[in-house]
C-alpha cells in the first residue's frame, strides 16, 4: 500500500513499463497491442508505447455505448469515438486505464473489444488500483494500490504533464 500523496506519475509509469516488459517476456505475448480507455488510459498507453518501443498504432476505446448505467443517467457527454486501427483477432491486447475501481468500466471495455473480434488474450494495465471492486476483475499490472478515505476520489489529469488529483467526491 502506498500513501496517495507520495505518488509520482512518472515513477509509476516507469514501474509499470518494467513490469509489463517482464510480463510480455514471461507470458510470451508476441506482437502485443496497447488499447487505452479514453481519456486517461489513452494518455498512459501513449507513454507506454514509447517506453516499450512497441510498433504500430494504439487502440482507443470510448466505452459510453457499453456502460451499464444508461437507464439511470442517459447518454454520456460526447468524447472522441472508439478507434481500433488494427485487427484485434488473435492479437495479445494490453488494455490500459488510469484508475481501477468497481471494474465496471473494464467490463464494458472488454465487451466492446469483442465486438471488434476475438483477441488472443487481454492483460489489464492500470496506474492506480484503488480497491472497491464490484466485479471479479483484477489488474495484470498496476502502478500502485491505494486505499482512499470515504468520500475521497482520485483522478488522472493531463495530457502534459500527467498528474494525480486527489479530492472529495462531488455529491
Amino acid at each position, binding site marked *: 500500500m502506498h500513501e496517495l500523496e507520495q505518488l509520482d506519475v512518472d515513477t509509476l509509469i516507469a514501474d509499470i513499463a518494467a513490469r509489463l516488459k517482464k510480463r510480455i517476456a514471461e507470458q510470451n505475448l508476441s506482437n502485443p497491442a496497447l488499447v487505452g480507455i479514453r481519456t486517461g488510459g489513452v494518455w498512459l498507453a501513449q507513454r507506454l508505447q514509447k517506453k516499450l518501443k512497441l510498433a504500430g498504432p494504439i487502440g482507443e476505446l470510448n466505452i459510453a*455505448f457499453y456502460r451499464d448505467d*444508461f437507464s439511470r443517467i*442517459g447518454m454520456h457527454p*460526447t468524447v472522441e469515438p*472508439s478507434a481500433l486501427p488494427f485487427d484485434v483477432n488473435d492479437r495479445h491486447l494490453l488494455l490500459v486505464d488510469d484508475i481501477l475501481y468497481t471494474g465496471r468500466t473494464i467490463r464494458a471495455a472488454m465487451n*466492446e473489444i469483442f*465486438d471488434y473480434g476475438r483477441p488472443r488474450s487481454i492483460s489489464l494495465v492500470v496506474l492506480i488500483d484503488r480497491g472497491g471492486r464490484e466485479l471479479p476483475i483484477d489488474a495484470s499490472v498496476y502502478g500502485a494500490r491505494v486505499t482512499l478515505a470515504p468520500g475521497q476520489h482520485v483522478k488522472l489529469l493531463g495530457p502534459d504533464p500527467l498528474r494525480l488529483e486527489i479530492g472529495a467526491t462531488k455529491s
Partner: protein
Amino acid sequence: MAQDSIQLDSQGRLKHFLTTEHLPRSLLTAILDNAERFTVVGDRAVKKVPLLRGKTVVNLFFEPSTRTRTTFELAAKRLSADVMNLNIEASAAKKGESLADTLRTLEAMQTDMFVVRHHESGAPEFIARQVGPEVSVINAGDGRHAHPTQAMLDMFTIRRYKRDFTQLKVAIVGDVAHSRVARSEIHALKTLGVPEIRVVGPKTLLPRGIEALGVDVHHSLETGLAGVDVVMMLRLQQERMQSALLPSGHEYFHTFGLTPARLKRAKPDAIVMHPGPINRGVEIDSAVADGKQSVILQQVTHGIAVRMAVMSMAMGTAAQAS
C-alpha cells in the same frame, strides 16, 4: 406552436424529436457529434452496441416508406433494441380518436419509443402528447410539416464535407412547397449558422412568403446555383404533375433538372444531395446523380448513424423519467 417545450425535458435534453425548429444550436450539434461516434459501429465486425438492449421500438408508418423505415429499423437494431414495424393503411384521413385508440393498444405492449410517419402534419406531436412520460416519439415525416431526422442526416453530410456551416452558401432546389424535408432543412441550416440559404424552383412550387424564413428566392437554376457550396435537391412528386402545378416531367427537367452543365454554376467542389428516391431525368440527370460531386449514397449511410444518435439521446432522457 409549443413544440420546443414538448421536445425537451426540464433539463433541456432531447425527449421527443418532432421538428428541427426551435431547438438550440448546441442540441443540433450534439446530435451530429453523437452520430459521428456511431458511424464507427458500422465499420466493425459486430455492427451493434448494447445501449438500448431490452427496449422496444415501434415503427408506426401510416404512409408508405422504404428508405426511412429501413434505416430507422437498422438504427434501432444496431442499438440492440427490439423493433416492430406496423404499416397502417393510410386509407381515410384518420381521426384523432382512432389514432389515440391505436396508440393505447401499442402502449399496452410496453413500447419505449414510437417512430411515426403520418400523412397529416402534427400527428407525431399529437402522439407525443398522449404517451406516458417514459415513452419517446420520433417524427419520421408528417404531412408537409417536418422530417427532422432527414434534415439532420443532411446536416451531418454537409459537415463531413464542408466542416464550417458559417461559411456556406446552400441552395435547396425543387418542390419546396410540398416538402417537409425542405422545411426541416431550412430550420436546421439557420440554427447551425449558414449565412446564405436559397430556395430555387418555379413559382408554383415555392410557397408564398417563404422569404420570411430568411431565405433568398430564385426562379432559375442559373442564378440559384451560382457560387453555392451545397446543392440540396428535392424529390418531385409525380402527383404534382397530375395536378395543374406542372406541365410534365420532361418539361420540368428542361428548366429545373440538375444537369452537369447547370451544376458548373456552383463551386467546383460543391456537393449534390438528394433525400431519395430520385427521379432520374425529372429533377436530376443521371450523370449528376452518379457523378463525382454526388453524395446521395453517403447520405443513406449517414442516416443510420444520425438515427442511432437521436434514438439513444431521446430514449436515454425518457428512461430517467420512468
